[in-house]
């Protein structure tokens, strides 16, 4: 009994309890990131390959869902056209908090090679992005790495934020 020198009731014990709750919640969140099936162009093929058996996203707890309401993660895989921009916003709004966004490929990051009138020059003009994944197209390994980096980022976050701050508007 002598080792128990720490007075756990000091400070109401609150900070200690909160960090561990954060950790537990973030552990859960980071290891079951359900991604939305959202392939917009050729990058979508690599995203599908990551989900399929060879690269096997399921081991990371990343399962593709067909509905924004069931997903935590939006992987914007491909070219976002200006006509489609309002729908990406709508889908993003339909996702429940907490939600994360990976912008996959040059097109989603900056418009990529489509330096034209019809392409949104970077998906971060519409929705806040957590992770930019360069490449055209990024290989499945890279996407897996991106998801692992995002998991790391989630683990460092506070769990109890009501609303994540938005960079845009």
């Amino acid at each position, binding site marked *: 009994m002598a080792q128990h020198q720490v007075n756990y009731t000091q400070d109401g014990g609150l900070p200690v309890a909160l960090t561990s709750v954060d950790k537990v919640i973030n*552990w859960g969140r*980071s*290891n079951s990131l359900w991604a939305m099936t959202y392939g917009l162009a050729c990058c979508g093929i690599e995203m599908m390959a990551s989900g399929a058996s060879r690269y096997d996203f399921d081991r990371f707890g990343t399962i593709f869902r067909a509905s924004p309401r069931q997903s935590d993660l939006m992987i914007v895989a491909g070219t976002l056209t*200006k*006509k489609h*921009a*309002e729908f990406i*916003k709508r889908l993003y709004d339909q996702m429940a908090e907490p939600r994360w966004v990976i912008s996959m490929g*040059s097109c989603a990051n*900056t*418009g*990529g*090679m489509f*330096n*034209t*009138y*019809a392409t*949104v*020059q*970077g998906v*971060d*003009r*519409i929705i806040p*992005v957590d992770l*930019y994944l360069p490449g055209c197209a990024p290989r499945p390994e890279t996407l897996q*790495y991106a998801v*692992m*980096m995002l*998991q*790391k980022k989630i*683990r460092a976050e506070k769990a109890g934020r009501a609303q994540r701050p938005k*960079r*845009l*508007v």
Partner: protein
Amino acid sequence: MRKYVPKDDVQKKAYYTDRFWVAPQVAKSPVETDAVFAADLEAIKAKCEVLDAYIQVDQLVVLINPNDNFTVAQILKEECGYNQLSECSAIDWLAKQKQFEVFYQFLSMSKRKRMRVKCFIDKEQAVESLNPLYRSADWAEREMYDMFGVKVNNHPYMKRILMPDDWVGHPLLKTYPLQGDEAASWYEVDRIYGKEARDIIGPENRESAVVDRYDTERFGRLGHEVARGSEFDENQPVTPLAYQEEGGVFIVKKFQEDGAVTITDRKR
């Protein structure tokens, strides 16, 4: 096998050609050289005025008055057996002659022949829809309207097909800038957030190669991560690339590089 062409010094030769270079025309031959086409042309001439007609790349080309386009298509379909309208669109010659060229490409499955009907229209002039004759004209004419602003009379659903309905301008006009005009560059911002948000979101970055590595608000450079919004300094220490924290994560195993096996034998 393809013939071998020596590739030495190919780079030295100029491969750049003028963007507005006009390709030389393929040789035209008179219509009389092909009996099938000559009969088709006679059928058209019986009812409509033909301004020009010739054969080019084994295809009959007929230039007509724009008001006759429906009649000509009807003749071609009902009398000459051209049962498919494979394509229809316009060409912007506004700079050269203040006119659009509207062309219709027909295919006859029974005669195994292709032919093209062309007409020139003025800027605000509308053409008659071929939709009652050929269903493929429906979308093709909508695309023509969307891309060039050429209106089509008696079309069942004259609306943009590719661009959004509230788009400004017609993108395939030669006067339309490739990177979009003012309305195009703010389109998604105006539509989703409203004009007020323009200042917050800012203009488009058209230099896609530029990534501002000193921008710590949005980017954390992999391997050189600093706290969000902090000043970036040249002597930033290199942070090791790791996908997992030092302490490890409950249940999740960390990959140990020393313990890993590299498989070289694919059949293993």
